[in-house]
């Protein structure tokens, strides 16, 4: 748990005093809970509340193969899940498509075309008919079974589809309202138009420049609203954590990386491979470039990597903090602890609303900054003049 919090502190996200305090408290609580868990494990197989909450949070942070809304345990100890199954698509010597209801939330094996698949910690493993998982270590964390390529429509994919459709509907209706009302937005467009203009004027034009910003506008707008909306969905009781998923943030960062380097100008590449230019004779540059050029090349990859880690860590940390605070209600079960946890989680929710917007802004802002580097063109006349002086 504190790994996420550590990432949070390392990232550029401004933290309020309260958030820091809560994080510190949670660090101790988390350690305490972990320590307790180990003891419990060896003594009794029955899980206590803290372990249950911890597992619940870990489960929530991961993608899932069915869209579960909530679950309950009846008097007989049977767990009932409420939600709907999603299609599982596997590539295992040919495409295999089946409903995730076959797994029964990981309780049963799914048999497709004579192959057996087991759902373990939200991941699908290929097993034998009895569903044995072989582990490489004693902790029982990482099964060595084959993992078929999993292209399932998971909960995250569903949320991305929903968000995508929402965005297309929202903004194409805004675009149509311009045509109808003579360039004046109507309804919800009045709320979104200033944001679009802000991204254009204060993010794109400010970082990329008047000449070239237009090329990047669709990407910046899409990435901003996509991240923002998914962040906001993450705060709803639907319990999705799309932007807190490393694969999603990686995909976004990869796109930023590709766009940056494929639109890079001659000056951009010159800055990487010949940053000093004519400022120094070649034998002088040779020595410095042995260090400098690798750093610059490394920088190419570090920039988008920082993007993906920042977004992932911030969103994950937010979810962990919020869910831990809500979990505290069930641990304390007292008149003091309950309302206190509730108040804290409410306050954090408010902060998370801000963070949802802030992280979308930071991602867009930094992407625009990198695009700005890539499309930068030095004014050679200026340089010549400087040399003259």
């Amino acid at each position, binding site marked *: 748990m504190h790994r996420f919090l550590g990432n949070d502190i390392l990232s550029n996200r401004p933290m309020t005093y309260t958030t820091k305090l809560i994080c510190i408290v949670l660090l101790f609580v988390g350690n305490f809970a972990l320590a307790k868990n180990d003891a419990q494990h060896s003594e009794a197989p029955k899980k206590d509340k803290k372990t249950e909450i911890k597992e619940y949070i870990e489960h929530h942070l991961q993608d899932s193969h069915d869209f579960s809304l909530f679950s309950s345990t009846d008097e007989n100890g049977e767990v009932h899940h409420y939600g709907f199954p999603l299609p599982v698509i596997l590539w295992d010597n040919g495409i295999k498509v089946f409903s995730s209801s076959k797994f029964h939330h990981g309780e049963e094996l799914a048999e497709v075309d004579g192959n057996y698949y087991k759902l373990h910690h939200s991941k699908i493993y290929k097993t034998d008919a009895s569903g044995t998982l072989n582990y490489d270590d004693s902790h029982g964390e990482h099964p060595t079974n084959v993992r078929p390529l*999993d292209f399932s429509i998971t909960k995250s994919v569903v949320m991305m589809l929903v968000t*995508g459709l929402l965005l297309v509907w929202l*903004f194409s209706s*805004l*675009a149509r309202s311009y045509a109808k009302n003579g360039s004046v937005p109507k309804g919800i467009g009045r709320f979104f138009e200033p944001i679009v203009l802000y991204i*254009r004027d204060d993010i794109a034009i400010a970082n990329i420049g008047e000449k070239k910003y*237009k090329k990047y506008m669709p990407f910046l707008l899409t990435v901003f609203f996509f991240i923002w909306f998914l962040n906001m969905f993450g705060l709803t009781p639907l319990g999705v954590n799309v932007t807190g998923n*490393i694969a*999603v943030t990686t995909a976004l960062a990869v796109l930023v990386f590709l766009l940056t380097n494929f639109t890079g100008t001659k000056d951009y590449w010159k800055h990487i491979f010949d940053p000093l230019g004519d400022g120094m004779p070649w034998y002088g540059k040779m020595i410095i470039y042995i260090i400098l050029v690798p750093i610059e090349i490394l920088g190419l990859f570090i920039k988008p990597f920082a993007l993906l880690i920042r977004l992932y860590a911030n969103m994950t940390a937010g979810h962990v903090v919020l869910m831990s605070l809500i979990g505290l209600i069930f641990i304390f079960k007292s008149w003091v602890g309950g309302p206190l946890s509730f108040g804290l989680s409410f306050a954090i929710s408010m902060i998370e609303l801000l963070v949802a917007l802030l992280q979308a802004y930071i991602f867009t802002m930094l992407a625009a900054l990198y695009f700005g580097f890539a499309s930068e063109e030095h004014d050679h006349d200026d340089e010549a003049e400087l040399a003259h002086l």
Partner: protein
Amino acid sequence: MEKLVNDFSFGLFIWQIVLFLLLLFLLRKFAWKPILNAVEEREDGIKKALASAEDAKKEMQNVTADSEKLLKEARAEREAMMKEAREIKEKMIADSKEQAKVEGDKMIKQAQATIESEKKAAVAELKSQVAELSVSIAEKVIKEELSGKDKQLKLVEKMLDDIKLN
């Protein structure tokens, strides 16, 4: 880091790339381009409207300046006319004064001449009257002197005396 790698789902990654590119394409075509174009058009419209308003303002200023100029000119003309009229008036007064003076001088001279001639006439008359008077006086005196015989004899004598002397 190990956890991150373990959590990484390649399938989700591919889905995200595909869906995002699709979303980017759709939004670019149906949303961002029309929105940005509309906004740009509107901004251009506003700019143009502002520029034309500025132009109109300038035109107004020009018109005001023109009318002001006209007014000024009219005022100057009036001033000039007034000045001219005043000058004419003054000139006329001066002229008439001059004329009057000349006329007066002329009249005075005439009067003087008349007076002189009257005076001369009077003196001449006076002279003639004095001469008449003196002749009559002399007549009377002579008459008186030569009234007696002796007196006449005396005179003849005297005159003879004078001739003798010569």
